[in-house]
């Protein structure tokens, strides 16, 4: 027997759905379906698509490699200033992305805190490079992964780790064979969230990495540049972005929320 719902609740839910769906429907309706293949096979479009996929996947890999250990330390270790560290980790969530790009320049630009040594000693210039794009995307995506994984680690029954230790497992083995499989669903959800954020990243990318086709012009940047020239091209690219994201999110089937769809 379903819980009865106040009628106002259902009405508001429908308004909410309409609010989100109408702009997307508008986009699909104004899309130049007849010219899609033509608009999307330009070198710039194909470059943007390839670049977006490659950089977002690499950025997601980085967030996993760096984010899981950080989440583990935040969940399993008590130390002074832990609240501060967690606050810092969450800052990219509230920072306007362009400001994020500015801060990345301050650290890794040619005259940046760390960047100046990279440039002066090794000739490495992160701005205007594809590596810079990956960094910008990883920067904004990392908090999503850390929050999700930290939450899962806290909720997990820590006696599983105790049991593994009494059976002789080293800390590494405990982490890989017991902890990781137990938090796997959350880890996947966090990674997908991080990937989605990385894919849609614009402000930090354009500010830190710049905008050049094939090197740093990801799909969102291509859309913005296209807007100056041709609305049709911008819409076509947006539809592609929309399509990829929608496909992935639907395939998760609600697992993001800890359910089974």
């Amino acid at each position, binding site marked *: 027997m379903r819980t009865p719902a106040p009628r106002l609740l259902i009405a508001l839910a429908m308004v909410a759905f309409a609010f989100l769906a109408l702009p997307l429907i508008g986009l699909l309706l104004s899309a130049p379906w007849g010219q899609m293949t033509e608009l999307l096979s330009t070198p710039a479009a194909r470059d943007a698509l390839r670049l977006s996929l490659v950089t977002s996947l690499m950025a997601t890999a980085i967030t996993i490699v760096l984010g899981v250990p950080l989440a583990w330390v935040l969940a399993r270790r008590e130390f002074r200033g832990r609240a501060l560290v967690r606050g810092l980790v969450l800052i990219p969530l509230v920072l306007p992305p362009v400001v994020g790009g500015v801060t990345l320049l301050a650290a890794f630009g040619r005259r940046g805190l760390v960047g100046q040594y990279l440039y002066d000693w090794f000739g490495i210039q992160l701005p205007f490079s594809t590596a810079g794009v990956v960094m910008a995307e990883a920067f904004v995506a990392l908090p999503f992964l850390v929050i999700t994984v930290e939450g899962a680690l806290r909720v997990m029954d820590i006696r599983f780790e*105790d049991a593994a*230790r*009494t*059976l*002789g*497992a080293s*800390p590494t083995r405990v982490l890989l064979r017991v902890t990781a499989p137990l938090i796997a669903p959350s880890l996947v959800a966090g990674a997908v969230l991080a990937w989605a954020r990385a894919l849609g990243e614009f402000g930090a990318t354009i500010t830190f990495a710049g905008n050049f086709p094939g090197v740093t012009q990801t799909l969102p940047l291509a859309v913005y540049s296209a807007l100056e020239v041709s609305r049709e091209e911008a819409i076509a690219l947006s539809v592609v972005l929309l399509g990829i994201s929608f496909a992935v999110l639907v395939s998760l089937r609600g697992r993001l929320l800890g359910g089974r769809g």
Partner: protein
Amino acid sequence: MSVDARIRTTVGSFEIDVHLTCAPGETVALLGPNGAGKSSVLRTIAGLHGLDQGRIEIAGNVVDDSAAGIHLPAERRRVGFVFQDYVLFPHMTVRQNIGFGPRSTGLDASGVDHWIDALGIADLADRRPSELSGGQAQRVALARALATDPQLLLMDEPLAALDAATRIEVRGRLRHHLAEFRQGTVIVTHDPLDALVLADRVVVVENGRITQDGPTAQVAAEPRTEYLAALLGVTLFRGSAASGTIACVDGGTLIASDTHAAGDVVALVRPQAISLHRERPEGSARNTWHTTVTGIDAHGDQVRVHLAGPPALVAAVTPAAVAELRLAPGEKVWASLKATDVSVHPA
């Protein structure tokens, strides 16, 4: 010695100070009320909890020594641990669970098959923990702990997660399995039946301290603390004895047949030994009181009648007797107890 542990540690704001030993082949029950610190003692021996002060030796190896700064991490201690509600890895089959220990330490897997057969769980080998009943999970947890060939087995409330009927059956089989285990076993429990059935020796822990330590039969017959006496269903009085007369510290007198006891003693009285009468009883009972009923409660097919002291007694009678004597709170009644039914032990 399978284990010789002198432990002083803190759990929250609670201090624990015990000295526990267990010989190879021996099963020791750590009995005590909830929150007494028993599980913490076990976790400290296993290395899952830190020692403030003390020394722990397992099979002759020093694993903890606060004075010398030694602390061997849990994964190197070769201690088998069975957790309350078993904590089986849900993402592994029964066989993988049991094999986890040998796989982690590079031990050969022969122990796995041996214990699967010994515990009769071969037909469960490919199932997941979620598909097991309570009794089956308990056996898998035991097999998992034993498959690593540990030098000491620790069990934390091994039967608490089972329903009453399963518990009886599993307790019996557990005794049999523990008899085969050649090293020492320490079982933490709050159920006196576990201690009585499974243990060779009982160590009573109350408020982080050991209050009694001895062979099972002796501890059961001669509880030294109110907690244990109550647990075993016996009433306990403290007092000082002289020529068979015991002056109780809470007031009142008991006359026992043992005239040699002297000094501080503990007197035990079984509720069943007290008879109740409407009129002053005739007969040989040396202990007779005219007292008032303060409360009545049912315990299975017996009724416990609480009597005002001093000394405050508890009598066990049948429901028929309650009706016949018209017993009710506030009613006056005569109680008698034979001197031979008062057992006296030095405190």
